[in-house]
């Protein structure tokens, strides 16, 4: 768990909630991500405008490089070969590609208003980016650094969670307070889930892939959505401004084909 104000990571046993250890001097870790091969840990310093890259050997994190990256790096996604990390820069409206081995920015491109969450489609074909300052998901051909399509969702498209069915990914629309389901083959919005509490943010999927759990960032609750009916069936009061959500007994991060 990343503590962006305390500047450290807390390693917790997900089954018992016991704190196993602390990792200090991880500065301003707004988001953290491991590369697919688990050899790199990357943290975005939203407040400090930089990216920190660490070697990870399964237990220890040793700093590989810190690089300035403005303005407001927030979310990330990795290429499946673990060579590149893509980072959205919220305030400058850009997407940056960073080479992990050299910790250098390879390129930056403008994508739109307040890009946030990213999702890599199967075969690393496209990057989907939630445009939180607009009402769509941008489809980016990252190899050619071009926005090739936009998928209308709802205001404040923010973050993604694969439905692990080989085809669909959910995106939260934090301003509209809806969740859109995107077909990764046709790159279209195939339906919205409405009737939610304010500010759906991060999402998690149950092991049986039936229930989508979501944090309501502006409503101090989390919600459980039955995906067969696409209805919110339960809410649970939690603390202030819930953000990330995870349970150990979850559906895989992606389907086997990467969707």
């Amino acid at each position: 768990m990343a503590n962006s104000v305390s500047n450290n990571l807390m390693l917790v046993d997900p089954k018992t909630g016991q704190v196993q250890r602390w990792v200090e001097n991880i500065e301003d870790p707004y988001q953290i991500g491991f590369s697919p091969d688990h050899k790199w840990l990357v943290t975005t310093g939203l407040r400090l405008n930089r990216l920190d890259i660490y070697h990870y050997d399964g237990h220890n994190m040793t700093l590989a490089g810190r690089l300035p990256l403005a303005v407001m790096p927030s979310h990330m996604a990795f290429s499946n070969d673990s060579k590149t990390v893509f980072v959205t820069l919220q305030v400058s409206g850009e997407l940056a590609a960073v080479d992990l081995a050299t910790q250098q920015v390879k390129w930056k491109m403008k994508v739109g208003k307040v890009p946030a969450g990213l999702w890599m489609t199967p075969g690393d074909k496209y990057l989907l980016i939630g445009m939180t300052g607009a009402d769509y998901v941008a489809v980016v051909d990252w190899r050619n650094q071009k926005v090739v399509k936009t998928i209308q969702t709802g205001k404040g498209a923010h973050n993604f969670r694969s439905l692990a069915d080989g085809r669909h990914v959910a995106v939260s629309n934090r301003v509209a307070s809806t969740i859109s389901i995107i077909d990764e083959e046709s790159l279209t919005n195939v339906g919205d889930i409405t009737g939610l509490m304010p500010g759906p943010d991060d999402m998690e999927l149950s092991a049986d892939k039936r229930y989508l759990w979501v944090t309501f960032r502006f409503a101090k609750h989390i919600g459980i959505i039955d995906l067969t009916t696409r209805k919110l069936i339960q809410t649970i009061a939690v603390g202030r401004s819930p953000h990330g959500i995870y349970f150990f007994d979850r559906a895989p991060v992606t389907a086997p084909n990467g969707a």
Partner: protein
Amino acid sequence: MFHLIVSALDSFVSTVQTLLYVNLVQPLLFRFGLMGYDEDTYDSLYWVIVGVLEVLAMYALLRPLEALRPVERWDDRKAVRVDVLYTWIAKLGILNLFFFFALQPFFDAVQGWLRLRDISNINFDNLWPGVTTQPLVTFLMYLLVLDFAGYWYHRGQHRIGIWWELHAVHHSQRQMSLWTDDRNHLLDDLLQACFFAAIALVIGVPPAQYVVLVALTNLAQSVQHANIRLHFGWLGERLLVSPTFHRRHHAIGYGHEGLKYGCNFGVVLPWWDMLFGSASWSRVMEPTGIRDQLEGNDYGQGFWAQHWLALVRIARRLARRRAPAKDAAAI
């Protein structure tokens, strides 16, 4: 019991925060292309709502006491009104908003620069994991450090002439009341914000999440300035700054002259005055203000006059290069 009250208040404030944010603030952010700051804005709304509640609570609690047990009886409260404006500016977070956009990026850049060179800060929370991770313990540590820093900032305000001229806006109030705590020159507020932001670079970011406890220290400072005949007893006076203790600091001829250019500089705790020999335990109620006001010097009645005249006084000091009065050192 305390936990239940805090929990209920937190629920209330959070509900108002959600309603305000979703229905009013977020649509404006979206409309004007400011969604990059949405999370910070949402978080800061909590403070704004607490600020409004603080003002309502301090008025409800202290105004009746000012009516029942005043130190001074006034013909009218005209001179108090401008302090109400200062208070709303502070409590509605307008100063914080300005600081966030104007100065916070600089301090974040300095922190980034320091960390890129592996210069780390002292992380209070994890000095003693298990103990210092307890919220109350961490809060008390921060209170001690920041109150200590506040004491020395205040000593500086009285020691350095041009700085005194800014702080004189606060001391020029001759009808000190529950509203006076936030009566400060905006430049002085800015300086203070920079001072504490610099400290945050060393000890880490102060615990903005301890809203209730910070609100209580704000309330304590409102009590200190209130026009209420109140002292905390021999022991209480030595634990917390009381209205009597702080009124001494504002007293003409006693509070801001002498070898240390005054006495009773403590913000929430009188301990630093006790430690550094600047405490006065006299309970005699004296008029507040600055000596040269008795000789006709005008520090301004309105908000802008008070601000402008401070700059005029600074310019005069710099031109003269000698102390015009006993209130602070020459420059």
